[in-house]
């Protein structure tokens, strides 16, 4: 720090409580902002000049980092404000009491600075206490709000009563206030059933609206997809394979919609494989059954294994006849395994016709490039299985 060129002082609104002046100074000098703040508070207590100085600093010193609305952070932590205000009240109360007892001649000059100092101190203390996450978590339950409102109302009423008492107006006031209160209560009791019915009616209406919205959504979806498919099926009724393919595709789509599954192909290995299988099935009309155990986010190795699996699927669809193909995926922490099994004629692994060997080499090569391996097992008459393994 000493060898660097002299750095101009900047404010730090991100880390500061008000304008970031103390935080900025602390960063420049290299000590804990808390110490600077304590010093600032002490200066305020000794004489009020520190406050205008802070304001000037806030205006003149440029800010480092994005400017934040000054009270935003503090406002979100209402408990901080409450504690600070409470502390201020207590301090003022203590000082006034001292004055009443003539214990210590407290000049008015000292009153306000002391109060502000105490408030500031409480603010800092409270702010530094709870971590922000806990505060964010603490949602305001409606009951909590009601309690606070009640406490506030009680305070106000208490204050009003005291005021009246001090002015010797309590007794006559009571003669007026009491009847008014009684009347208000009576009216409230009379109107209560209507009020309750109104509130309940609102809730019912909201439920009905939500239900009709969902119904409209379902109808729209069915209209877009299922009805279209059924119409297509009727038209192509003489081509059983295509009808079966259409039906399978629609079934898969509807299932996914009903289960609210993730959008196809995006984030995870499982969905990428399912999407690949759906594409291959759509192109070649051979049903592919997908079974997944475990899942993982899609990374570079996942992409490789999906590509290899897709090649194997296409190969199986082309050469292994109309019997369904099984795609099995197992994802554990240690490895990813994919098995593509068909029920085609099979072949003796040794004498492989050259065109199929090309595809197999491509699959093997792709896997080995990414640190995995591919094996092909086949028995004439029993079909073929391609095994793809990548260690994670």
């Amino acid at each position: 720090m000493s060898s660097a060129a002299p750095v101009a002082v900047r404010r730090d609104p991100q880390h500061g409580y008000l304008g970031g002046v103390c935080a900025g100074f602390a960063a420049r000098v290299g000590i804990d902002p808390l110490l600077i703040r304590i010093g600032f508070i002490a200066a305020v207590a000794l004489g009020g000049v520190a406050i205008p100085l802070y304001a000037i600093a806030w205006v003149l010193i440029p800010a480092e980092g994005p400017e934040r609305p000054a009270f935003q952070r503090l406002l979100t932590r209402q408990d901080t404000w409450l504690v600070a205000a409470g502390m201020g009240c207590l301090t003022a109360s203590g000082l006034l009491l001292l004055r009443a007892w003539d214990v210590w001649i407290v000049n008015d000059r000292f009153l306000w600075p002391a109060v502000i100092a105490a408030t500031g101190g409480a603010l800092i203390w409270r702010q530094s206490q709870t971590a922000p996450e806990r505060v964010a978590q603490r949602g305001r339950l409606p009951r909590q709000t009601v309690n606070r409102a009640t406490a506030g109302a009680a305070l106000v009423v208490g204050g009003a009563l005291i005021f009246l008492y001090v002015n010797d107006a309590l007794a006559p006031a009571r003669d007026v206030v009491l009847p008014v209160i009684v009347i208000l209560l009576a009216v409230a009791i009379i109107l209560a059933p209507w009020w309750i019915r109104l509130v309940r009616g609102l809730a019912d209406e909201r439920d009905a609206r939500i239900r009709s919205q969902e119904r409209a959504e379902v109808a729209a979806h069915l209209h877009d997809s299922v009805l279209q498919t059924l119409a297509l099926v009727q038209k192509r009724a003489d081509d059983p394979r295509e009808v079966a393919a259409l039906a399978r595709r629609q079934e898969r789509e509807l299932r996914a919609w009903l289960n609210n599954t993730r959008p196809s192909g995006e984030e995870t290995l499982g969905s990428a494989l399912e999407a690949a299988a759906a594409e291959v099935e759509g192109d070649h009309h051979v049903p592919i059954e997908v079974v997944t155990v475990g899942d993982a986010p899609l990374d570079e190795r996942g992409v490789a294994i999906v590509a290899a699996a897709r090649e194997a699927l296409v190969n199986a669809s082309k050469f292994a006849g109309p019997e369904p193909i099984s795609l099995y995926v197992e994802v554990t922490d240690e490895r990813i395994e994919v098995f593509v099994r068909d029920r085609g004629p099979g072949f003796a692994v040794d004498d492989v016709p050259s065109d199929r060997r090309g595809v197999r080499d491509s699959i093997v090569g792709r896997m080995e490039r990414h640190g995995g391996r591919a094996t092909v097992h086949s028995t004439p008459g029993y079909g073929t299985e391609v095994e793809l393994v990548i260690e994670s």
Partner: protein
Amino acid sequence: MTSVVIVDDHSLFRAGVRAELDGLVDVIGDAATVEDAVACIVALEPDVVLLDVHMPGGGGLEVLRQVAEKRPVQRFLALSVSDAPEDVIALIRAGARGYVTKTISGEELADAVRRISDGDAVFSPRLAGFVLDAFAAGAAPVEVDDELEQLTTREREVLRHIARGYLYKEIAARLNISTKTVEAHVSAVLRKLQLSSRHELSRWAVQRRLVD
């Protein structure tokens, strides 16, 4: 021939299955509601009941429960459009000895019915996948001593092969064991599925629902 009762609230489907199974098994009755089903099963005493999962009045689960009180030896094969894990597992744990989806062909269905009637369990590849998933999700459970909580390596191997699309005799050939042994392993898995601690499997099903 094996006698079968079909329980499904979808009449088109009931008729379709009847036609498909004609000649392969003996369909002696069918029912569309839970009450009819229970009455029919208790009266006719079939070898196997083909049971749909989703029906009004509690669904296949309700039929299973009520029949279990009156005719506990009854064997059920769950047949459904749904392949949601919760449905599948719930029915197996309630006592069904197998689960197949409605897209299955007539011959395979008849074969499955016969196997259930012989006392074996029928696991579709997807069900095998679910079971592997369920028992893997509880990896390193707190109470490891109970053997019902885990699958043995052999059972896991057999399930994997089923999930990969192998038939029992193919699995037997690959693992160098007899078909009967394969069936024994599958039945053991079924028993574990039915008896293992409710907590773990329900938790898995709930997790699945949330994740999905």
